[in-house]
Structures are given as structure tokens and as C-alpha cells.
């Protein structure tokens, strides 16, 4: 029997469509229409709203699914064929736009230098971010942070030795080290509550732009394909390496705007945790994987580069809107 009260993390509703591909896909998931045909798929803009939402919907079937969508759709061969047709242009755009290094150490070393006058989103929010901008930031980050560390779990069976042990140790920490109240996704839900946002899973999918969805789609793409294990590890290393200083600025933004103790704690915890994770991911996971599979060096570097690239695109969207006093969201929160 269904419980009378709404579970906090029930399967989310399917969102509104953003174009022909996502519209057809949503109908198909509801069981009321055919999949998008090849002509429609061929016309997709790789980084646009329609393709990114469609890809997000395909991937989400592997995480929490959607209300009213048959669980068997996760392994529907026709749907997987469409997913592959969406992944191809996305991956091609990432490779063409992001690739700057062929060696993991060169790609990561660049991230270990802190700019004195940084101009990223966390710098903006620390210096002059207002509460409404912090809320917009949190709403769009929630499409990832409410499943924080989940996309990276898929790489575990594909690793061995030091890389596996290091990755598992970091993931254990991300998932609260055995304590539900410390799971990072829970800490983020608490942050959302402090900011007056609804922490229900998937609540702000429709509000999030293509750039925010691309950040999560990149993780799912790398996580779900064994052949992209190098890129997944590079992506994870890039996130852990840049997170600690960025989180310090965001904790400071939360403190200055009096966003609340849980909002501040989420980022304060990441300052300390990710300073550790950065060390373990570089010394054990990246170095361990290169020891086992040295041919993955360029893939790891690509994962680092691609992560910086999708984050920069998101930063551009947020800062462009905020600097002119506009909302960065698709729909108001």
C-alpha cells in the first residue's frame, strides 16, 4: 500500500519538453507516442536545451526514474538506440570544444594553481552574491547535488587495486561514511531547505538550463560507459581538485548573506573533505589507474578538460544573467 504522506524522494514527475526530441521522448516514456525519428534526431543542437533534456531523461532512468514511467524502459533497446544517437553529437562537441591536454598530470597541474583575481561563479557569489542568486545557483546545482557522487559509482567495478580502493574510500566519504544524515546529497537537501527551496529530487529540472544539464549529462555519459572510465576518473579528479577553494568562497557567501547554518555547512564540509579527496584522487585513483592502464592517459586528460569546459559554459550563462540583473533560470523558483 502506498503511504499516505508524500515520500521526500519519490520519483519525480516528467518535466515539460523543450523541443521536438524531448517532446517525443516524453510521450514515449508515458506510453502515448513513438520515439523521435532519425530526421528529428539528426537536427539536434548538441548543447541545446532539447538534446540536453532528452539525454537527461534517458540517463535518469538509471538513477531514480520518473513517476508513471515503466521501470523496464531503463533497458529498452529502442530507447538505448536513441540515447546513443544523442550521445554521439554531445561527445563530439565535447571532444572538439574541450580537448586541451593529452596527459593527465598536465591537465591536473593547471588546476592546482589558484588565480589571485579569479572571476568564476564562486568569486562572484563570495564578493557580491545576493540571496536570490545563491538560490538560483543551488536550484541548478541540485540536479547534480541531490545525487552527489552517484554517477561516479559506476566506475568502481571497472577499476582495480589502488584506483579502486581510493575511489571507494572517497565515495564512502561522499555517502556519509555510514551515517545517513551525513550523506552529501542530504547535506545539500538541508542547504536547499535553508534557502527556502524545495529539496524534492528533480524539483528544479525544468528551471535548469541546458548548461546545467550538460554538467550532469557529462557525468552520466562517462559513468555509464566502461570505455570512458578514464574520462570519468579525470572528471572526478577535476571536480575534487577545484572544489575545496571554490567551496570556501561559497561558504563565505552563505555566511555573508546569512543563508543559514546548513547552507554554510554544506560548503564548509566540502572545503575540508575535498582537500583530502583531491590528494587521494590524484595519488591513488589517477596514479593507480595509470599504473594499471597507462594507455588511458589522454582519456583522463579529456575528462579533466571536458569538466572545465562544461563548467565554464555554465558560469558564462550564470554570470551573464546576473551581471545584467536578470535571472539565470528558465522558470522562476
Amino acid at each position, binding site marked *: 500500500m502506498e503511504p499516505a504522506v508524500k515520500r521526500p524522494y519519490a520519483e519525480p514527475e516528467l518535466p515539460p519538453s523543450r523541443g521536438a526530441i524531448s517532446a517525443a521522448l516524453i510521450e514515449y516514456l508515458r506510453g502515448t507516442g513513438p520515439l523521435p525519428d532519425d530526421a528529428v534526431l539528426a537536427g539536434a543542437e548538441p548543447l541545446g536545451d532539447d538534446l540536453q533534456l532528452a539525454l537527461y531523461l534517458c540517463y535518469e532512468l538509471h538513477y531514480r526514474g520518473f513517476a508513471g514511467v515503466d521501470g523496464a524502459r531503463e533497458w529498452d533497446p529502442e530507447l538505448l538506440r536513441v540515447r546513443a544517437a544523442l550521445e554521439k553529437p554531445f561527445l563530439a562537441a565535447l571532444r572538439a570544444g574541450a580537448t586541451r591536454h593529452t596527459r593527465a598530470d598536465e591537465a591536473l597541474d593547471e588546476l592546482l594553481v*589558484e*588565480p*589571485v583575481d579569479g572571476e568564476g*561563479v564562486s568569486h562572484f557569489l563570495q564578493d557580491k552574491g545576493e540571496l536570490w542568486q545563491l538560490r538560483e545557483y543551488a536550484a541548478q546545482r541540485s540536479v547534480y547535488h541531490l545525487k552527489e557522487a552517484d554517477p561516479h559509482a559506476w566506475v568502481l567495478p571497472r577499476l582495480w587495486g589502488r584506483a579502486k580502493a581510493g575511489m571507494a574510500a572517497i565515495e564512502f566519504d561522499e555517502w556519509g*561514511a555510514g551515517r545517513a544524515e551525513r550523506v552529501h546529497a542530504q547535506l545539500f537537501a538541508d542547504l536547499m531547505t535553508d534557502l527556502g527551496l524545495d529539496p524534492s529530487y528533480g524539483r528544479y529540472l525544468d528551471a535548469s538550463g541546458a548548461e546545467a544539464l550538460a554538467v550532469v549529462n557529462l557525468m552520466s555519459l562517462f559513468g555509464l560507459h566502461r570505455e570512458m572510465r578514464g574520462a570519468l576518473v579525470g572528471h572526478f579528479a577535476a571536480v575534487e581538485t*577545484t572544489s575545496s577553494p571554490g567551496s570556501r568562497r561559497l561558504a563565505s557567501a552563505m555566511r555573508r548573506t546569512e543563508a543559514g547554518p546548513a547552507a554554510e555547512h554544506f560548503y564548509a564540509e566540502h572545503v575540508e573533505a575535498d*582537500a583530502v579527496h583531491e590528494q587521494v584522487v590524484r595519488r591513488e585513483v589517477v596514479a593507480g589507474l595509470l599504473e594499471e592502464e597507462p594507455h588511458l592517459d589522454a582519456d583522463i586528460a579529456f575528462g579533466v578538460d571536458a569538466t572545465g569546459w562544461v563548467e*565554464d559554459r555554465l*558560469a558564462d550563462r550564470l554570470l551573464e544573467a546576473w551581471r545584467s540583473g536578470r535571472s539565470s533560470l528558465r522558470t522562476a523558483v
Partner: protein
Amino acid sequence: MPDSPAERPRRIVARREGPMLVEGPVEIVLEDGTTVSSDRFCVALCTCRRSRIFPWCDTSHRRHSPAPRPAADH
């Protein structure tokens, strides 16, 4: 179990640059007599003394460059 944590020495990873990595949990007594603790699987202890969350590392040891870098931002 010869490899159980109780029967082998605690492992500390030390490098000239960056924090000292110590297997957790740890309890650290500071100079004012207060005690801080962490039960993380590994803790990074600040050795550059610039950390704003001393004794824990907050990556303040990193080199700084004047130009903004084009990379991921949290």
C-alpha cells in the same frame, strides 16, 4: 588479522609540498589545549600553516597565478 588497523603502525604520507595525510580517525591537541577530532578515513593536516581551518588542510598551500585560469569552478 595481521593487517588489522590495531596491529600495524598508523600510516602517514608526507610530502614536501601539500598536507600530511594521516589515516583517520584522529584527535589533535592544539596549542591552546583544545582538542579537535575527525573520523574521516583519511585526514589532510596543514603543514604550510596558511590554512584557515588549521589543523586541517584547506588547499591554501597552492601556488597563485595573477591571471584567471579558464577551468572548472565549483
